């Protein structure tokens, strides 16, 4: 028999949940409502594939920014994921307990460094290095990729490590008993078994990389044109919003929200992919 306290508490929880969800819905609706008019006006294809971004002249093509986001993120993944996987293997398989207790907090600390500090460090160390030894202005896709690779390390490492540790002990013990070396065990058995976790980790890392703004706004150069090499300055979808948010009026502002919609779509696709992979693994 439900007494009043019971019913009241349930109503209160429901109220809380609904308000939370309505706020979250508000944001989504807001972003979409603000951004859709301009996409409708310019045309989806023109917006997404348009080559020219010059709002003061009415050009709203974000393709250069999409290329910017993709190339910087891809670069970050190429540089960061192998290192992250190696570090996870290190944590799960190779590190003695004492080192593990140092390395894991170290990764946490890496995760806690504010993105503006990363950006600053990049401007001081990475950008001049690229400018002096590789050419170009230094502010480039490469600089962004390096910084982002470092920034996604904690995410990818922690989730991958968890996936490896979650594997049953007998996997490893069986293999070793059969005479495989440690590395052979890892490469042929543990890694493939943890594959879905690793993929999920990488997708989450990529999601983080795509959403990053402050670190990359300092090292990317923010040129509005399509890049032709990794040494070219470039603008991502997020830095585009960041650098032009001062233009808070009319169509220009709507276009920035429209960019937000594109980002939202990308994030949703990535999340769906990650969820699908995790669910597929669970059903096995």
């Amino acid at each position, binding site marked *: 028999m439900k007494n009043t306290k019971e019913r009241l508490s349930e109503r209160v929880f429901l109220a*809380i949940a609904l308000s939370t969800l309505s706020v979250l819905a508000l944001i989504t609706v807001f972003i979409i409502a603000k951004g859709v008019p301009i996409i409708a006006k310019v045309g989806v294809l023109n917006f997404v594939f348009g080559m020219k971004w010059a709002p003061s002249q009415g050009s709203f093509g974000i393709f250069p920014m999409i290329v910017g986001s993709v190339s910087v993120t891809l670069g970050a993944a190429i540089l960061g994921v192998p290192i992250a996987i190696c570090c996870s293997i290190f944590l799960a398989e190779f590190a003695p307990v004492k080192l593990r207790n140092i390395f894991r907090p170290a990764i946490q600390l890496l995760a806690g460094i504010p993105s503006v500090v990363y950006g600053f460090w990049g401007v001081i160390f990475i950008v001049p290095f690229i400018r002096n030894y590789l050419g170009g202005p230094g502010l480039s896709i490469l600089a962004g990729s390096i910084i982002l690779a470092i920034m996604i390390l904690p995410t990818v490492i922690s989730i991958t490590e968890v996936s490896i540790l979650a594997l049953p002990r007998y996997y490893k013990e069986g293999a070793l008993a059969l005479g495989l070396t440690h590395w*052979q065990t890892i490469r042929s058995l543990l890694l493939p078994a943890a594959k879905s976790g690793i993929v999920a980790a990488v997708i989450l890392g990529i999601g983080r990389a795509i959403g990053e*703004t402050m670190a990359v706004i300092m090292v990317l150069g923010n040129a509005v044109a399509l890049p032709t090499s990794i040494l070219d300055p470039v603008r991502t979808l997020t830095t585009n919003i960041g650098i032009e948010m001062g233009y808070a009026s009319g169509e220009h502002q709507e276009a920035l929200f429209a960019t937000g919609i594109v980002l939202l779509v990308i994030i949703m696709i990535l999340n769906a992919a990650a969820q699908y992979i995790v669910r597929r693994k669970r059903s096995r």
Partner: protein
Amino acid sequence: MRVNPKTTQRIAKVLIWSSAVLVIVILLNIVFYILIKGIPQINWQFLTEIPRNMGRSGGISSTIVGTLLLTLVAVVIATPFGIGTAFYLTEYTREGRITRIIRFSAESLAGIPSIVYGLFGYIFFVTYLKLGWSVLSGGLTVAIMILPTIIRTSEESIRAVPHLYREVVFSLGGSKWQTITKAVFPSALPGIANGIILSIGRCVAETAAVILTAGSALRMPSSLLSPTRTMAVHFYILAREGISMEKAFGTAALLIILIFLINVVFNMLVNRYVAKGR
């Protein structure tokens, strides 16, 4: 030609250890560079005076207060809503399409770049609700940003509580409310606290959303409606515009120390609860 497995083992070991070393080296480089240049800047004056001359002289007291106030507002608003929602989703509803949709939305919202939240916050809180650039605008915006994280971590911790705990309370004649308060919540607390502390770290480090909503005014905030500059924003402006590299380093050092302390506190809390015996 078959490569000796022992050789691949050795090469692999070298590569893996090198990766770990590389990561540590990078971490030390970043952290030490900031700390070495920044800690000498931190003295009593730095901590208690407000910035003068655009931040070239004086201290950063107003930014410290701004950061703390904004984080407080965000956490105080987001925590009850986040935890309450998590409880509702796990305890009062059945797993179904609706809960899956809600979870998916929360995950997606967690992934939205903070700059988009900043844009939303500027238009909605600052302009439309006429709150202006203020601690409140910034706090509300950041609260919305950390909400999905708190919901997610709370939900995971609540789910992890064994059913046995709830059944014990039920079998003793307790109501649902009592199972929550006496069994589930205490058990899930470490995980929930984890989520909150993670979010606190995010509040402190957040720049993009804050600069658009709390503003960049240098004075000590006198109320929730005053604009304020947080430490992260202050560092960004100082470093970007080359106003004062020394003060920038000092601010960054303080930020890193603060975040480090938050992490340490969390780890201590976790260890204490784990040691309490579950």
